[in-house]
Every structure is written in C-alpha cells, then in structure tokens.
C-alpha cells in the first residue's frame, strides 16, 4: 500500500458528538405510543421442576395486561438457536425462551409480566406463585464430567460433545504421544480459566413494535442480521416480515453476540398484546442471565528438549457450556483449538475438548472467545518450561517462534500464517520496557528480601482474526458463512453513503469506513456518511465480532467503492468523448490520459442523477454492492511485558509498568487502534486480577451485582505504554489484521506470568485467576509450609 491522505490519519470520530452531548439513541431511550413494559419472573433455583405456576394475583395487579408462562407459549416459542453443532452427535437440551417444565440455571425465565408501566410490571413479579420441586445441581466442571449428577434430567450425560484435532491424523505434524514418550523435559499442568461476565455498560434492552405489516425490533445487539434470521427461524415468521434495528449499542464484547430469550419473549409479548413492548434488563439480571464467558479446565502437557526446543503439546480441555448451548457456545473452545501452538513451530500437537453442561448460566463469546484461553495456556506453559530449564522466558520463546523470514508458515494446527515479525515486536517491547533494568531491580529486591517483590511477565501472542473464510467455517460445521457485505451509494450532490453489514457498537466504523472511502474515491472525509445497524437499510451482513470488521467488512467497502469507480469511468468517458480505456482516476477526478481534460466524481454523480446524457443502455446509477469473503484469517501478533509488584505481606498485586507492542498490520486510524488496545488490556488485566463469576454450592451467582463482580475502575488500572510494529497482512489488499481482541488476549498471561515470576523463588508454583490478594497470600503461606512442594 502506498501512503495516502486518509489511511493512517488519526481522524477524530464522527460518532462522538451525539454521545458527548447526551443525544444518544440507546434502545432503552425508545418510547412508542401505547408501549407496554416487561418484567421477567426468574427461577431462584439452579435446577428444579416447575410443578405449578399461579398467575392469578399478578394478572389482577394494577396495570398488568398479560402474564405469559412457558406453558402459554410452548407451541410458538420454538427453541433458541445453536448455530455451531461441532460434531454430528452433539447433544443439546431444548431451549425455550421461557422454561416450560424444568429450569437448569438460576435466573432462567419462568414467566413474563406485561404491564402499562415498568413499575407495575416489576410489582407483579412478586405476585407470581411458582411451585418448584428442587433437583440436584452440578456446579463444578470436573464433577460434571463424571456424570454423577445430571444438569438436565432429559439428557443421559452432561457431555455435549467431544472434539479432537490431532496433527498426526491431520497430516500437519507428528504424534504427540511419541513426543511425550521421548521428552527430555515434560511439563504437565492443569490451569483454570475462571468464568467471566462480559459486563458491557449498556444493559440489554429490546423494543418490539408489532404494528404494521411486519415486526420491528430495536435491540442492544451486536448482530442485527443474524438476529433477524434466527428470530425468523425460531418463531416461524418469514424473514421478510422482521426488521431488526441496532441503534446506539453500549458495548458488546461478545456479550451481545446472542439471540436472547428476552428478545424472543419481547416478540411473543408484542404478538400476544398487539402493542409495542419494551424489556430492559437490570444489571443484576444482566450479570445473572446474560451469557458468560471462558470457564474451562485446561489439562496440558508440553514436551521439550533440554535446549528449550518444544517437541509437542497436548491439550485436554473441559469446557463449561453452562446449562444450554447459545448461538455459538459449543464452538468457542474450537476457536481456540488452532491457537495453542501460537507463534511457535511445534512439530506435534493434539487438542481434545469435552463440552460439558452444568447448572450455571450458559457461556458463549466473550472478547477473544477461545483464543485468550489458548494464549493463556501456552504462555503460562512457556514460562514453566523456561523455569524448568533455567532459561530466560524470552529466550525460550525465541528458540521456538517462527522467524520472520519463514513466513508464510503453515502451523501444526494447519493454519497458514501469512506474515509476522515476532523478533521486531519483541525487540521493541524489550526496549520500551527496559527489560534488563527491571531484571536488575528484581534481583536487588530478591537479594534484599524486600517485602514487595518484583516479577516480569512475558506474553507473546498471535490470534486468528478476520472471522472468517466461509469454507473454513463450513469445515468446522458452523451454520453460516464469514463474508461481509457493503454498498457504496453516490448521491446526486456527490456525497457518499456507505452501507455496511458490520454493525458497530463503539468501535468507530463510521470514522474508519469514511476514511477508507474518502481515500478510495477521493472525496472529502466529511462527505461520507456510514449507515449500519438496520436490516432494512443494510440488507445483508454478518455483523461485528472476532476482529472482523476492517479485514472483512472494510474490504467489502473497498470492493464496492472500486465498482463505483468502474461505473463512473463509463460515464466519464462518455461525457468527455473519450475511450474508456483512456480514462484515469485519481483523487476524485477522471482524466483523459495525456490531456488536461477531466471531470470529478461529483459532476458524474449529478450527470448520472439527471440521466440526460448517458451512454446508451447505461443504468442511471453509480451505486454498487460488494460481498467479500476472505481467503484466509489474519494474524495480528505482539509482545506484552508487565512489571508486577507483589506485596508479600498482604498478597496485593500492583502493576508497576505495562508495555505492549502490537503488530496489527496496516493501520487505518491509529487513534481507534490505540483505543481498542487500551480497552482490551483493561479486560485482560481484569481477568488476571479482578473478575470472576462465582457461584455457591446451591447454584446461586454470588457475584450478582457490581458490588461483588469487580469491574476495575480508573485507579485500579495502570498507564499503558503502547507501541506498534507494522508487518502488512497479505491476506487482504489493505494489509490490515484486526485489533479488537489483541489486548485482551495478550494481557492476561502477561500479568499472571508476572505475578508468578515475583513469587516463584518463594516456592509458589501456581495461583488461580483472578490472582486476588487472598489467593496470593495463601499461596505464599502454603509454599512456606510445604517448602515449595505442592
């Protein structure tokens, strides 16, 4: 790519003005005439049979218009979709939006109140008398795997599916068992990915208007297009009769990549009452019943030679589905399956995953979705190997990583990494971090037995982004493709409207897409308007997740813009009485080669609109559509370094310094990239230190509000030092790689490796996430009493 005016420019965002002035259009702001309000009656039990529901008192409560139970809608509610059956024999319970006979997690909806005000609806919740017969619960993942207690009475086992990748069978590598049998060094560990909650700031909200000839839904969703299709399939409504609008959406992070029971219920309520209906969840409901993420037990074996060369990696996962399979629940661990080998040249690899039901809220995508889990595991293991061999953790990585001259490189997991330069990113990070200086300080504190010990956490990572080549998704049994659609419309004034199927919820697509199109069509940035998030405006699309927007959606935008140019050339040639072959386009002008005769895109737009003088047979329209299906994933990578202080007296963990150097390929807008990195870091650090969705033995979520689910605030997080290297991707014409998930994926292992590096010499071998002060202190005490042997 040549440097251009717009690509790479730190444009301020077009989307900001209405958000900083309070003129926002979030779903809960919507009011429609005669609109009714919903409140959910939710099960307090994690597993129970519903033996009776008495709604009489609620129905006669002031303002209540309807009360619907599962029995009332059993014939019409269908089963919520799972779009990713990872094996042909995958088991899944039926999943009605409102439970009919049995509830399988605390918070599951058993009835809905529809009332004239939100207060009246809420008041009537108390009046619904549900009789339950409690059933045994299974909360622990490893216990669930034994099938001693079943999460669903209708299923014979808690095992949903087992999925295996073996490099020897796939022909992408050799046998792991051979590698383990012949290992000079074998590292075996079991690591735990705690359950997390996406905790987007805007609670989910849905408004459904059933008036007119179609159903219109406004929803706080990442996926208006997928939602429209799935609502149609679930409820048996023609797709053409459903319009979904995602107005301003207050964050998603995968948490709004879902077809929710509440969305279906709001449609049902609107259908039953004939009135517009609104449901907005409370934060407590959001934490309890919005899908969770992570939740895996990772049983790992890494074999190596004494010089640090890894010879094989075996991964055996238990993945907690929770009580149901949501939209892509079952596929989340599979998204990680190709990433455990990360940036390394492992010769042998085996991945086996058991998807297991428990009586908890179901899990699904959360920022990174499978890839943070994989990166955490391998980066922890590389540190363990370095410790075992007495090597510097960076040296053991360098020993194994793909050198920049070896790209393109086909990995043991079968992916072809197009480009990368791990040496450059690491060198830059080491430099920014003052690695040697901090190692010296670490030694000083160890020698002085300082109560505040220093650790250095290393994380080198890559991820597969740009979800996804449709053929690859097909080979993984995913129920849809991975393309993206765009339309570029040329208005009579020469202004441009860009319609994208990639629906933003904070990422800044309006700004970035404007830059892409301004650059390609040579029109002012200000003259480009980006439209998205309404299935009636953007008819085709696969929405926003998996760091796909720029590398897939952006490419579609560019392709559509190129088609506009081709069309406009025809008109330009006609108007200037030249041959089409002699027309050159640059900076918004069409010029007849070798002359000073030229016309602008704006002039052609007006001429096309007027249509008075167009070539014979030319359709008077410059608008163009394009659908882009990537041929490969993109592979951003980076090196993150964390200097961690551990107060050995209290167990408190502090971040002294955080440096990350990310290579996300060509950058369209450095401001947006920086913002994505910062936010990703905050969430990854939060997994390492603060957040955990914890349940008691009875199945109640004990972190059911922000009092206990600890989302960090400004004083809890450090100032991040960020840098970039730029190795353009070759899998798309822009050279971009994607940035939405990088910070989250890389930072968690960097922090935990740092914590362990600070206290490993005191005998601590592992600390479960989040590394709370209490856990760190107990680990130190245990190390004292056991002499470091556990």
């Amino acid at each position, binding site marked *: 790519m040549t440097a251009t005016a717009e690509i790479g420019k730190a444009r301020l965002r077009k989307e900001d003005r209405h958000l900083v002035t309070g003129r926002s259009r979030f779903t809960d702001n919507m009011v429609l005439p005669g609109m009714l309000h919903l409140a959910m009656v939710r099960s307090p039990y994690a597993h129970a049979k519903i033996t009776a529901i008495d709604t009489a008192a609620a129905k006669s409560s002031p303002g209540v218009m309807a009360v619907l139970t599962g029995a009332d809608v059993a014939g019409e509610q269908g089963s919520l979709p799972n779009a990713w059956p990872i094996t042909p024999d995958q088991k899944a319970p039926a999943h009605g939006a409102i439970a009919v006979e049995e509830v399988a997690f605390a918070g599951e909806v058993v009835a809905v109140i529809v009332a004239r005000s939100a207060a009246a609806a809420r008041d009537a919740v108390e009046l619904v008398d549900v009789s339950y017969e409690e059933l045994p619960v299974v909360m622990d993942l490893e216990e669930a795997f034994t099938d001693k207690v079943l999460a669903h009475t209708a299923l014979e086992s808690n095992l949903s599916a087992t999925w295996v990748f073996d490099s020897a069978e796939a022909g992408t590598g050799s046998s792991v068992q051979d590698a383990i049998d012949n290992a000079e060094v074998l590292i075996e560990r079991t690591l735990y990915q705690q359950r997390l909650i996406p905790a987007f700031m*805007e609670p989910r909200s849905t408004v459904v208007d059933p008036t007119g000839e179609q159903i219109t839904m406004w929803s706080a969703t990442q996926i208006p297009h997928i939602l429209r299709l799935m609502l149609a399939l679930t409820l048996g409504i023609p797709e053409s009769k459903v319009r979904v609008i995602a107005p301003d959406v207050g964050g998603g992070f995968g948490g709004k990549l879902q077809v929710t029971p509440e969305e279906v219920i709001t449609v049902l309520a609107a259908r039953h009452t004939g009135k517009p209906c609104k449901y907005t969840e409370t934060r407590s409901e959001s934490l309890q019943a919005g899908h969770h993420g992570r939740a895996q037990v990772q049983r790992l074996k890494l074999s190596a030679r004494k010089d640090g060369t890894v010879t094989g990696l075996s991964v055996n996962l238990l993945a907690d589905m929770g009580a149901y399979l949501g939209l892509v629940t079952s596929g989340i661990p599979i998204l990680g399956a190709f990433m455990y080998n990360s940036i390394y040249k492992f010769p042998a690899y085996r991945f086996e995953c058991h998807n297991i039901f428990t009586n908890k809220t179901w899990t699904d995508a959360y920022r990174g979705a499978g890839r943070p889990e994989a990166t955490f595991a391998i980066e922890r293991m590389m540190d363990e190997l370095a410790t075992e061999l007495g090597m510097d953790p960076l040296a053991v990585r360098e020993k194994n990583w793909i050198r920049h001259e070896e790209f393109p490189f086909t990995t043991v997991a079968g992916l072809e990494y197009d480009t990368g330069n791990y040496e450059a990113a690491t060198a830059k990070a080491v430099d920014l971090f003052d690695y040697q200086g901090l190692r010296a300080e670490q030694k000083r504190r160890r020698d002085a037995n300082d109560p505040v010990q220093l650790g250095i956490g290393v994380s080198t990572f890559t991820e597969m982004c740009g979800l996804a080549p449709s053929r690859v998704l097909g080979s993984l049994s995913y129920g849809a493709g991975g393309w993206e659609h765009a339309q570029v419309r040329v208005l009579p004034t020469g202004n441009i409207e860009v319609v994208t199927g990639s629906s933003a919820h*904070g990422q800044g697509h309006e700004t970035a897409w404007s830059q892409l199109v301004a650059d390609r069509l040579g029109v002012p*940035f200000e003259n480009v308007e980006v439209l998205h998030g309404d299935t009636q405006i953007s008819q085709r699309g696969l929405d926003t997740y998996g760091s796909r927007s720029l590398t897939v959606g952006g490419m579609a935008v560019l392709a559509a813009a190129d088609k506009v140019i081709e069309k406009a050339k025809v008109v330009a040639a006609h108007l200037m009485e030249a041959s089409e072959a002699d027309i050159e386009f640059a900076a918004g002008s069409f010029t007849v080669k070798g002359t000073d005769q030229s016309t602008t895109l704006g002039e052609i737009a007006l001429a096309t609109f007027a249509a008075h003088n167009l070539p014979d047979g030319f359709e008077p329209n410059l608008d163009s559509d394009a659908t882009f299906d990537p041929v490969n994933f993109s592979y951003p990578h980076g090196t993150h370094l964390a200097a961690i202080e551990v107060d050995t007296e209290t167990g408190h963990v502090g971040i002294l310094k955080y440096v990350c150097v990310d290579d996300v390929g060509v950058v369209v807008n450095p401001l947006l990239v920086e*913002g994505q990195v910062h936010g990703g870091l905050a969430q990854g650090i939060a997994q390492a230190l603060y957040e955990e969705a914890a349940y008691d033995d009875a199945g109640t979520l004990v972190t059911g509000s922000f009092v206990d689910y600890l989302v960090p605030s400004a004083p809890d997080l450090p*100032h991040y030092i960020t840098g970039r290297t730029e190795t353009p991707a070759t899998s798309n014409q822009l050279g971009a790689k994607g940035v939405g998930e990088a910070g989250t994926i890389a930072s968690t292992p960097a922090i935990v490796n740092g914590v362990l590096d600070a206290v490993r010499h005191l005998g601590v071998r592992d600390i479960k996430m989040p590394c709370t002060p209490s856990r760190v202190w107990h680990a130190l005490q245990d190390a004292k009493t056991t002499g470091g042997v556990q």
Partner: protein
Amino acid sequence: MASSKTITVEVDGVEYTDDVEPRLLLVQYLRERLGKTGTLIGCDTTNCGACTVHLDGVSVKSCTMLAVQAAGHKVTTIEGMSRDGKLAPLQEAFHQCHALQCGFCTPGMIMQSASLLTENPHPSEAEIRDGLEGNLCRCTGYQNIVAAVKSVADGTVYDDSGVSATADETETAGVK
C-alpha cells in the same frame, strides 16, 4: 397506592412542576418524565456512575436519589452542559482525546469529571483516576479519559482540524 407528591425542580435551566410517585428515582424522572434520555442507567447498586448528574453543582448518582428529594434543587444533566451549540470543554476534550467508544459511560464520566475539576482544578493523574473511581467504563481502559480530563485542567486548546493532536504521542512509543 402511595400518594403522589408535587415537586418543582430546575433541570438544565428550566423549571418543571410535576406530580411524582415517591418511589420514582431522579434518573427515571429525568428520562421518562422529562425525556432527558442523555442520562443513562447502567446498574442497580450505585457502582457504575452512568447516571451521574449535578445537584446544585456537585455530582450525584441520579439512580440513588428519589425525584422528591430533588424538589427545590437545581439539576444539571449532560444535556445542559453545552451552550449555544458549542461543546463544553470536557465534551470537546473527550472527543479530541478519543475518551469514548460506545459512549454509554460518557455522560456520567463527563459530569463526574466536571465536578472533580470544580473541587480540584489542577489534579494529578492519580487524583483524576481516584476522582473517577465511581464511574465504570468497559471500552476505553480509562487512559484516554484521564488524558481528556487532564487536558481540560491544563487548558489545552484544540484546533478544528478533525485530527487528533494526541495521536503523535502514542507514535513516539511506536515504530513506523
């Protein structure tokens, strides 16, 4: 049914008189009765700060106050911050510093930042962070929010180029 109360309250410079149920929260009054939907609700336990407004010039969480308690007081919301079509300095700084992504925490962040700067016109970075401890953001990782508040305290004047003045700073740490 509890009897309603008549309240008179000044919001963003306009006096309103309304009958309200005692249980109506100030934030619900603002959103549902006055249509001031710029103030948002992010939690139910007084943690997230999305609903922050000013009551007689100091920041409060409008989800943790009854509308009846606001009777006779002056409330300022995010919608009352800009004057004559011109963004208030903090609004401009949040835009310039890319201190918002999804924008849901932004009204509360700006209102709390304004209160913070009233009480401490020249805060350190640490004081800014502490001053925002009651406002959660899930998108930005806070760094650009802190920078935006600092820039207002420092009296930074922005040009109207539409391009970030701070992006170069990140580039110094990067590699071209």
